[in-house]
């Protein structure tokens, strides 16, 4: 269970997130949408441990989230999240090698074979078996993201963080990836947080949709107020007019909104 208690994030005078309180149960699939710069990526970074809250608490199973990334929370970025110097198979195996070979970071013989089998099984699941011996630069964008997901899952994290993972993919491939991520989510019993620009993705995937937006604006001091979660909706029960309103909120550019409201 992840608890967010009166969470604030500020950079100097610039308030990014203000006073967020939520609870997320194990196994939920939360989609985070919002305009760019609204703090949803900052929130993901806090879950990852790269940023810490300025005020308030971020608890995982009652404990504060560690202040650096570790194997309990997996991540898939939009790009650069696989290792270019390793083959597809090695990219998946390396996580087990980190775990089981603290000194060399590399396994040999029987122990290596065992990890290889495990990695192959995971590649089979994400549909990368034919590409097991290729290098990442030989893969298409979608295959590379499949690899990044397989890599993130081998250490069996409880929480999976996705930072616009399908943003650079073609629509057709994106649909396949949605299918894949839903399957893996159910099978591995993951808690998923996914940041996306694509609202329809938020509706299709997952169990819960969060919209990040600034409730108050001061045109003289754009950094004075931070974003809050303006909508927290269970997916599947959202009325059409709410959808339209949200669509508008997300697509409106930040500067236009400020002048519009002050006028």
């Amino acid at each position: 269970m992840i608890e967010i208690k009166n969470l604030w994030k500020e950079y100097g005078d610039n308030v990014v997130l203000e006073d967020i309180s939520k609870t997320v149960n194990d196994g939920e699939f939360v989609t985070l949408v919002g305009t760019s710069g609204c703090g949803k990526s900052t929130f993901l970074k806090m879950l990852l441990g790269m940023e810490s809250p300025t005020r308030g608490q971020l608890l995982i199973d009652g404990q504060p989230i560690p202040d650096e990334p570790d194997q309990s929370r997996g991540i898939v970025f939009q790009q650069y999240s696989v290792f270019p110097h390793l083959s597809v198979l090695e990219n998946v195996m390396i996580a087990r090698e980190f775990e089981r070979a603290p000194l060399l970071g590399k396994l040999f013989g029987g122990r290596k074979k065992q990890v290889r089998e495990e990695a192959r099984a995971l590649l089979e699941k994400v549909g990368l078996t034919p590409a097991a011996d290729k290098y990442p630069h030989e893969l298409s964008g979608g295959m590379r993201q499949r690899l990044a997901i397989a890599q993130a899952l081998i250490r069996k994290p409880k929480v999976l963080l996705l930072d616009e993972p399908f943003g650079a993919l073609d629509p057709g491939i994106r649909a396949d990836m949605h299918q894949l991520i839903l399957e893996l989510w159910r099978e591995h019993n993951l808690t998923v947080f996914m940041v996306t620009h694509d609202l329809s993705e938020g509706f299709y995937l997952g169990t819960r949709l969060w919209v990040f937006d600034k409730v108050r604006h001061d045109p003289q001091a754009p950094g004075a107020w931070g974003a809050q979660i303006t909508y927290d909706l269970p997916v599947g029960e959202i009325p059409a007019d709410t959808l339209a309103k949200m669509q508008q909120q997300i697509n409106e550019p930040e500067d236009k909104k400020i002048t519009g409201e002050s006028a």
Partner: protein
Amino acid sequence: MKRLVNLTPSKPARILLGLLPFALILLIYVIASDARLEANPSDKLLPSFEQMGDAISRLAFEPSKRTGEYLFWQDTLSSLTRLGLGIGIAAFIGFTLGLLTGALPTAYAPLAPLITVISLIPPMALLPILFIVFGLGELSKIALIIFGVAPFIARDIQRCTLEIPREQLIKAQTLGASSWHIVWRVLVPQLMPRLINAMRLSLGAGWLFLIAAEGIASTDGLGYRIFLVRRYLSMDVILPYVAWITLLAFIIDWLLAKTSQLAFPWHHQGGKA
């Protein structure tokens, strides 16, 4: 007529055009040399190819009367040993420092300013100090190459380390990697082709420092030889030696490039993933 920027010569034309300047230079040299030798057969400034061949076969295939060594090969061996040791040690030091300062902020803070300042010292200005401290032997020549090249490699590797996408380092941590794992399994392999590239770029400087040090204080070596025979205006030795040095530089560069392509194919096929 296409614009000049869109005009690409065909492949045979490209090769021909590439060879053309070489052929022209040779031709001009032969004409000039012939003219001078005709006016004065004992002219030393522009020796004929025959004279150069004689001089080199004397140095390469007849033992020296004084020492019994085949001077040309002895010079080559000495120079290559010095260059290899110098560049090799410089690469090791530079790689270690660049990797540490690039990967660890706690190493960057105390070391990076120092490396920057050291890299700004003109290495040739250190040569007298090296001669005083290490004497006139091998050590001071190799030390000059190290001082000249290592800071450049260190800064280059540092920059390359910092350029590796942060996402990869974070990803490795979410896979349970320790700092050591990240350095050893994520950074070092990706930096190896960059190191070879940095070595290729620093070989020019390496040769410069080698020949300068040999010219000033040495008893053998390619640089020593050309500085020695300068006293006798022996262009018939100097010109082939310069050509030989150029060929050696070319071969070393080519070997490094090939090694990199064979050992790190993912790097050369443009993989950043």
